[in-house]
């Protein structure tokens, strides 16, 4: 199950952060997402990165903690997408397709002429679409 999704701007400022757990763990998820940015930085700046992964947006598993796993995805505009899952075994392909849809939703949201770049995404449509994607993901992994 996806605990939280986040979009982080290229200056590492949070653009969108939504948790899908009922518990009052917003602070924790904020922390986890924030920490994961370090890992993204590290991945992206690592000079040893091979050519095959250099052009890949999907960054893979970033930050395994005991109860969560964080996956990351980096767009060409350096917008970062993060997913915190409580599933400890998730197929890579599932995550990839999830990120692709998430990215598409983001692109649509920021294409709105009234959206201010690098400001928080307040679009209700975007929120609905993301929760739709998250639900679809949950259904896909369970079924």
């Amino acid at each position, binding site marked *: 199950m996806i605990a939280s999704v986040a979009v982080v701007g290229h*200056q*590492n400022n949070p653009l969108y952060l939504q948790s899908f757990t009922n518990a009052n763990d917003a*602070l924790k998820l*904020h*922390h986890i997402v924030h*920490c994961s940015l370090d890992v993204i*930085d590290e991945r992206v700046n690592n*000079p040893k990165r091979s050519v095959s992964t250099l052009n890949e947006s999907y960054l893979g598993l970033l930050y395994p903690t005991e109860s969560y796993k964080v996956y990351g995805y980096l767009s060409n505009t350096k917008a970062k997408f993060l997913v915190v899952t409580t599933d400890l075994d998730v197929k890579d392909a599932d995550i990839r397709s999830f990120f692709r849809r998430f990215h598409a939703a983001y692109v649509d949201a920021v294409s709105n002429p009234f959206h201010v770049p690098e400001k928080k995404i307040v679009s209700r449509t975007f929120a609905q679409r993301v929760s739709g994607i998250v639900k679809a993901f949950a259904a896909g992994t369970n079924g």
Partner: protein
Amino acid sequence: MDPLKSYFGRLLQEEISPMIMVRTTPLAEDACQKNGLNFVELLLPFSSFTKLNVPVRTANDQPYRIQLFKLRLAYACDIHLQNDEVAEEHLKQVVLDANQNILPHLTSEPPELQNLLKSRPRGYIYSWAIISSSDEKKTVLFRLNPIIAPSFGCEDRSNLTSCDFLSFPMESDLCPSWIETFNKELIRTVSFSEHETFDHPVACLFVVSSKDEQPINRFVDLLNTDQFPPLLNDGVMDPKILKHYLVLHDRQDGSPDKVSNILAEMRSTFGSNCKFLCINSAEARSDDGKDVPWMPYGSHILHRDNTARLLSREDINGVRDFMQDLSSNYIIPHMEQKIRILNQQVAATRRGFRNQIKNLWWRKGKEDAPESPDGPTYTFSSIESQIRVLADYAFMLRDYELALSNYRLLSTDYKLDKAWKRYAGVQEMTGLCSFMLDQSRKDSDYCMETAFTTYLKIGSSSQRNASRCGLWWAEMLKARGQYKDAANIYFRISNEEPSLHAAVMLEQASYCYLLSIPPMLRKYGFHLVLSGNRYYISDQRHHAIRAYRNALFVYRENGWSYISDHVHYNVGRWYSFIGVLDLAIKHMLEVLACSHQSLATQNVFLNEFFHVVQSMGKKFEVYNLRLPVINMASLKVFYEDFRTYASPSDVHVSENLWQSLEEELVPSATTSRSNWLDSQMKSSSRRNNDSAVCVVGEAVVVELEFQNPLQVAVPISEISLICSSSLNTPPPDGDFESPYNSDSSFMLSKLDVILETGETKRVEHLKLGIQLEVCPKMEGLLKITGVRWTLSDTVIGYRHFEFDMKGKQKKGRRDLSSLSTNLEFLVIKGLPKLEACIQHLPKKIFTGDLRPLLLELRNQSEFSVKNIKMKISHPRYLIPGNIEELNMDFPKYSENLESAVIKEAPATVIPNTKSFLFSFPDDAKVQGRACLTWPLWFHAGLTGKISLYVSIYYEVESCSNNMTYRILRMHHDLEILPSIDVSFNITPCKSSLHEFFVQMDIVNKTKSDSFSLHQLSSVGNMWEISALPTTLYICPVQTLLAGQALSCFFKLKDCRKNSSNEEHLSGCDLLMVSQDNKEVIDVSKSPMVEFHQFERHHQVKSSKMEAWAWKHSCFISLLHMKIYSEGLSANLTYSLFFLRYDDLLFFLTFLKGSGMLPVSVDSTSLPTVLPSLAEHFLKLFPSSIPSQSTLHIAPQLMVKLWGDLGKVDFILISKMAKTDPVIEPVERPKLLTNHTCHISISSNSPISWQMSGSRMINHDFSASFCEVGFHLRVQNCSDSVVSIRLVTYDVMPGRKHSEMAKLSDSSGNGSGWNDISLVNDIKVVSSVQGNRPKKLSMESQFPFIWCALSSTKLDLQPLSSSEIPLKICLFTPGTYDLSNYELHWELNPPERITGDLKTCTSGTVYGHPFYLTAIQLQH
């Protein structure tokens, strides 16, 4: 890097070193205690040797030298596993001790990232380089250390293009030193365990004082194994250890002579391992030990008062020599020997192929042995224990190769035996050996990992061992530069430890993240927060604050407010716990504006904040308090210099609008500024050009937007401005400006509000614009610097206005200089100030409402004002009346038909498009404290919303100031609702050339109001309205209900022929009421006539210019400078144009007149004289423009005169029906006038004609045929020459009827409703129109013959008429329709206007029916 020289290498060499067990007699201890030390403490400083330089030979024959060596000393009673509680207490004490040191740091500023990363390295140089490699264009950080750099992939230095060296922090700079101590203490809690032998004593030191009775016996007592540690007695370790005997002599007890006897005795009893040590030889000194020789060795215990008082230099040297002798001559050789012996044994039993097979076989046989948690027990004599001892001794003597091989040997054994704890211990040591040998990292990491997990697997008993293993592992990784991995290990340890220990571990983890490459700041912050949390849980608030504070800078990154709020809030809370309230508040302030948090959280934050502030016990002043949020961009300053405003809302009107309105009003040169050069000169020449001017006693208003970001209502009180003022006049001592006592020089307004929250349903929060005032009381300079407020009666916030914000709008100021100067005011002495209001001006008015209003001017000051002028922006709606009208009763006053004298409209009425200037009479002065009222007339001309602007100019009488005049500005917004809409359609009367049928369509457009129609008037004396003969009243009903449409018909008679050239506005009225109210309202009286002028002027504007200019004769093409006069009429129309150079718009005024022109002009000469004519007129009148002329701006350069032929103006006067009680009496309109102007009487043919002649003839047809003569009178209604051709037909062409039908259709669209009506109204109208009777076509019964000419052609001059004689022949009696003739007409303007005129220039009309009845004459 050499692992031996790393911190961890040195640590291992210190921690894993030979242990000496010490036993003393009480008297020996007493001797030491005279110095405040126990015996171990006395020896401790001399137990480590940096330059021992002893040759060592272990199993290998090759000797090597040991430089660094250390002995550990412990009392026999301490050599046992520590109790858990005791260990916890001990560790907690370490943390508590650190508490005292950090308190001063907590009150200082938290560290910044730059400071953290730039802090100077001490000792070891760590350099970093930023490498820009040319091929990858990437920035790489690496540590310029030959050993470590390769690990970062920077072996190849050749591609370095630029290097930038940074100094990077060492761990010791970041990590508080007590943490190191803590780690050591944590490790020591697992000392003396059974499964490891490096803590087992290598030797035993027995100490007896020389004062002891029978020292030998004392030694024997000490040798008693009962009091030995359990390790020796339980068989875990070999009880046969090296023994060393020492006699301690206290010099104060006498000379050491007798000791030699004891020594000799001892040597005979115990052998050569006997020594003698002398202490306390120094004099007892009372001074505080400045030159205590002990000083360099024991600073850590020197704080006790009498420490080492009695130790002389010789004593200390004696101790040192003793220790050196002990280690190099006894301990090391003993260990060497033991290693060799054990090695031989191991080689004999375990080395070689045979032994290994045997071992395996033997081990396998034990497989089914029951498994115990500690595995099988091993005594000291078992081969496994001996291997372990061998390996540990080798490790301690730095023979890591030997140690490693033995550890490896042992680990398989233990693994097979399932002795997991021992296995883990051995793995741990294997890892350490690998590290010390600088062998493969993978191996050592693997070993440490195995050890760590194995320890954990065993359970709680070896949890602490796991922690120790982890600490060593982390140190090992740090020594190799793998900080990130080290951080991970610390994190793993923290999971296994109680919260306090976990906190320390997490803190270390965070430092590791900071030191990793590149620094992982976010993880640093996160782990600090985790650590702080654990500290807090374990009641270490100081440490918790320290950890959180250090993390703060990480979250200052934009947007992570959730986390930073949490950190700030907790830091604040904890500060308040430890009583540092100011810092607590400082941090609390950061979270006040937490709009993103939930309501509960906001409440918690606020309450906590107020709680802290209250416990502070006094009001607290905060700069830039975040609550409420002040929108600095909304800052607006309003003040009155020479401009004053009637109400605060008037200030918001754009300054440009006022200025354009006041152009003609203001006499000063400031308005005539035409270019930028001008303005610059003016501003530089101004005396106090950089500050605005305000007047004593008149408030300066600052408007500021306050915003409550929270969902909690916030009470704010005492909002006021912060101001400073200074006297302008130079005081005697020479200072130009001296600060003035602010209390008396101005007065501040104070305001209390409660900022409500934006409710739950609305996301956006409430903004509140707050108006603050400062009222200067003295002349001088006043400066507004900021704003202050009190939040919840507890916190005073203040904020200075910052002046760097751009694009700020500031009203009431002409030149937009920076705000800093705009907030400075030059206060000048008091001036009179008029206040004005327009009484009874409703906000909503029906269209057409005509009402009197009262303008009230009040002068509050002592001075009187004079020369009052008024300018009104929309004279169509508002005009000033006459003073006589002040007390008249409206509308009664207008209903005075008898006294209606023909009078000219007032000369002051200038139908200007822009505005209206009115000068009050000279005697209208407003004295001090007096009031002036003046009537105004209001007429709601057009539906819609309108803003009326009124500027009143006045001059100050007897004023010494440089400000001689002031302007009062007033502004009103009105909404004009639709009421009655009227439209007219005029068709020429067929039966009379001078009569017209008028169809009047009236629609009530209101929703619920009804109107009673009162009167219809035509304007001007040229027209006469009369009811159709069959009806008494033209209108069938008097009251028009809401939404009702009505059509009325009446007759209009053209009286132009018999009127002279003198026109006036008396008009012709037709009462539409039937019963009671018979009074006719005179439309030629004052307010009505002026408004009609304006209406007429504005309605011209909206009509279609081209067709209109074509239809009516006079137009000027200014491009060609040609003019066509109005024809041959005696009332020649002359023209005048104004040319405004600045905007290149042409104003043309036509006027009617005769005496004005010095030269006589006719239509041919006019073009040539026009330029001079215009010049003449410009000189002649700037003011007296006759009222009957209309001025018009023609964009297509064609201009039309009003007042010519064929135009009718109607005024429909109605009253509000007295049915609706909802409207207040004041609001109720008394009279509504609808002005409809410029209704053309002409149809779409320029001619009208009428056949005249006898209708009935008696003729004797039997005698002859009958000849009848007729006249066809043709009139030219147009303004140009028309050539007419009359054609008669004996047989009507077949197409006649269809064409006629087409004609009537097109005429239905031609005139009538103006184009401003709404769509649904058109529907109403068209249905009305549909009822109109169409022209009936009649068929002639019998043919008749036109006599005489069949075609006549003639030219008609404008407005002239001509008669054409006609004759027909009749042959039989009957009724004949004489309509079978056609009139072809063609307009012949002298010069044709080419282009886009759409009006047709020729056409054909068909004859009107004219019936002739011929009767047979009976004789």
